């Protein structure tokens, strides 16, 4: 683990040299493959010194974040073309990567909090520094203060656990359980904002709409998963109170997910549609975690990985269109099959994965989440039915609106996709659909 950390640290000076854009990308990819070659013993918290206490879920999420950081660099080539504070951009990504790496790999709850918050500043910088409209200030403020407002009580909660439990190690959480409702709220609220749960999600569409492509990729792919990861860890110590209170969260997130997926049909901005769809998916993940059963934990993990790859790919696609047409509005992005037929295939593949079509991780995740919530209460069936149906609905809506029909008459000349973009999309789609072949690896993560 130390070697990867040092690798990241020593990439930092590289960021400040000239013409190192692709080299940094290549190093991240190299790191990814070296990380994949680690032999990790799957059961919980083995390899304490060698892996900093990674278990299977942190391992998977670290791989996801390395992968997405590399793809972030790859997909924001327009910055390279314009030479727009390139060095600092790379530095920012590496810092973010380092923070995420440490967040997922530490065992100490306080260290987790520290790096959890630490990943906030690079994200804020990405949005405020490289965004497009002046509204990005507001979006950045929303992002920062929603998260900080909820996470400062988390700090108090962690210290409260520390003085009662005499330890902040996550492993020892399972030996203790509290029944204090304030502690419950303080511990989960930060993660629910980060996920985000319905009612707490207002920052997400704003941040996505204003963020540059790299910002929304990392935001959708990894930052939301920080919340899920934290909830999975924290639920361990909140078992008793969780049995009493969790139903509220399940109900809010499921019904909210249903509303949000209806709201997706009203969006005209592609990015905000994708952002809302990720709120709906995360609603299912929250539901699965909050039922606190085995299926739910597995399903939420698979769903997080799948959604990370899938939504990040869709943001890539929307950016590819944006770079060509100069707009993300669905009224202008229409009939694109006429211009970019091969890109249309990638739209189809990623959107079908988003609606949980068969060989994707999302399907696996959705099946297990449905299992977990159905075994918890049959009434959730109605919401789940609506969620799956409407997720297919808005994915098809997005697909048919952007690809079919006549194209906008105001279009000026542009070229169809370049191989870098196809490669980026393939690198999103391939793991999403091939990981199913080795699904037992993620199905026994704890």
């Amino acid at each position: 683990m130390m070697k990867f950390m040092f690798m990241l640290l020593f990439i930092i000076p590289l960021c400040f040299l000239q013409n190192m854009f692709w080299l940094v990308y290549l190093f991240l990819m190299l790191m990814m493959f070296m990380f994949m070659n680690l032999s990790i013993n799957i059961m919980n918290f083995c390899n304490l010194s060698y892996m900093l206490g990674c278990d299977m879920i942190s391992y998977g999420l670290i791989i996801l974040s390395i992968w997405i950081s590399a793809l972030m660099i790859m997909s924001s080539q327009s910055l390279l073309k314009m030479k727009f504070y390139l060095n600092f951009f790379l530095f920012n990504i590496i810092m973010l990567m380092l923070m995420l790496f440490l967040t997922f790999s530490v065992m100490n709850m306080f260290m987790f909090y520290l790096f959890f918050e630490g990943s906030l500043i690079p994200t804020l910088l990405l949005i405020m520094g490289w965004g497009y409209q002046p509204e990005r200030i507001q979006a950045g403020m929303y992002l920062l203060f929603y998260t900080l407002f909820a996470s400062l009580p988390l700090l108090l909660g962690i210290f409260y656990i520390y003085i009662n439990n005499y330890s902040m190690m996550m492993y020892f959480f399972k030996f203790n359980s509290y029944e204090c409702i304030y502690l419950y709220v303080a511990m989960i609220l930060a993660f629910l904002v980060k996920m985000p749960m319905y009612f707490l999600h207002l920052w997400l569409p704003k941040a996505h709409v204003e963020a540059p492509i790299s910002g929304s990729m990392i935001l959708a792919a990894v930052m939301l998963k920080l919340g899920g990861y934290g909830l999975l860890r924290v639920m361990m110590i909140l078992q008793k109170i969780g049995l009493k209170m969790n139903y509220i969260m399940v109900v809010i997130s499921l019904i909210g997910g249903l509303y949000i997926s209806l709201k997706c049909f009203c969006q005209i901005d592609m990015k905000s549609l994708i952002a809302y769809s990720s709120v709906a998916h995360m609603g299912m993940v929250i539901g699965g975690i909050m039922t606190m059963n085995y299926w739910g934990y597995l399903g939420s993990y698979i769903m997080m990985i799948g959604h990370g790859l899938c939504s990040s790919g869709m943001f890539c696609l929307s950016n590819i269109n944006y770079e060509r047409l100069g707009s993300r509005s669905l009224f202008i992005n229409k009939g694109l099959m006429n211009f970019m037929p091969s890109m249309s295939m990638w739209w189809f593949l990623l959107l079908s994965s988003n609606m949980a079509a068969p060989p994707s991780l999302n399907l696996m995740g959705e099946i297990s989440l449905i299992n977990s919530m159905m075994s918890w209460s049959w009434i959730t069936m109605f919401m789940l039915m609506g969620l799956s149906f409407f997720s297919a609905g808005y994915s098809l809506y997005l697909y048919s609106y952007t690809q079919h029909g006549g194209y906008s008459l105001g279009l000026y000349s542009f070229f169809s996709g370049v191989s870098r973009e196809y490669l980026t999309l393939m690198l999103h789609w391939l793991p999403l659909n091939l990981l199913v072949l080795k699904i037992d690896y993620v199905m026994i993560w704890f």
Partner: protein
Amino acid sequence: MLFMINSNKMFFFFTLFFSTLISISSNSWLGCWIGLEINLLSFIPLITSPNNLLNSEASLKYFLTQSIAPINFLFSILLKLLMLNFFFHDLFSIMINSSLLMKMGSIPFHFWFPNIMEGLSWLNCFILMTWQKISPLILLSYYMNINFISIIMIFNCIIGVIGSFNQNSIRKLMAFSSINNLGWMMSSLMISESIWKLFFFLYSFLIMIMCIMSYLINIFFINQLFNINLNFFFKISIMINFLSLGGLPPLLGFFSKWMIINFLIMNNMFLITFFFIMSSLIMIFVYIRIIYSSLLSYSFKFKWFKNFIKYNYIMIINFFSLISLSGMIFSTFFFI
């Protein structure tokens, strides 16, 4: 830099340090009082400069407030000496405490503080915000009325935040943020002096970088930051240091807050801690208002208004901001 060329100021600088040492190391209250008075008399000549009218106004205000505070202090310690056998302990401690609060510009005697800061140069602001607080805080720790100070520190945090809303002058903002940090300092003083030392050291460090930077680019108001054409790294340093001052986690400023929150929770002071962190949250908002211009890499700037800074100053600033960027991370490696 400013003091090295002027022998008068060097002398008063020396007595300034010396007086603080007198008052924090003396055995009797009277010795403390002498230290406070010498402190006042040596700071006033430091404030004044012949070519700025605001300075003399500030020095007059400073003289008035700071002479009232030690007089009250003297009065209460003498009264306490005379009436030692009676049981007015609460009254005496509150009297002594409030004169010290006035001396360091805390709630409810804080109104002079932003006004005087407005008239000082950045280096004097630095002294006023950090060094001038040492002796009152140490004396406060000798004879502290816990209930009184608990309320005072909560109000310090709140008023520090409320005062900094809609404030355009960076010096006033720093004054209010100093009032806010005073709350943290008093709470750390309540717990242990070593934590107070840590907090005070880190706070002084961050304020020092702040003041040096503002001194170098000669900035007094927020809107000046927006159209100044700065070196990119300098902008980033401003951002890092303000975020660090606000106490955002991976930066150094969080370390001191972490320590205090940890020990406050250990002593079961949940409500106070809650007030503290929520007020510090709003303080972060205020700081971020200042650093908008450095957060936005694509923003308006004048081409003809370029600010040149000596290279070695930039190296110093970058070194300090590197410390405040990575100091926390390296210190956490001990805990992983």
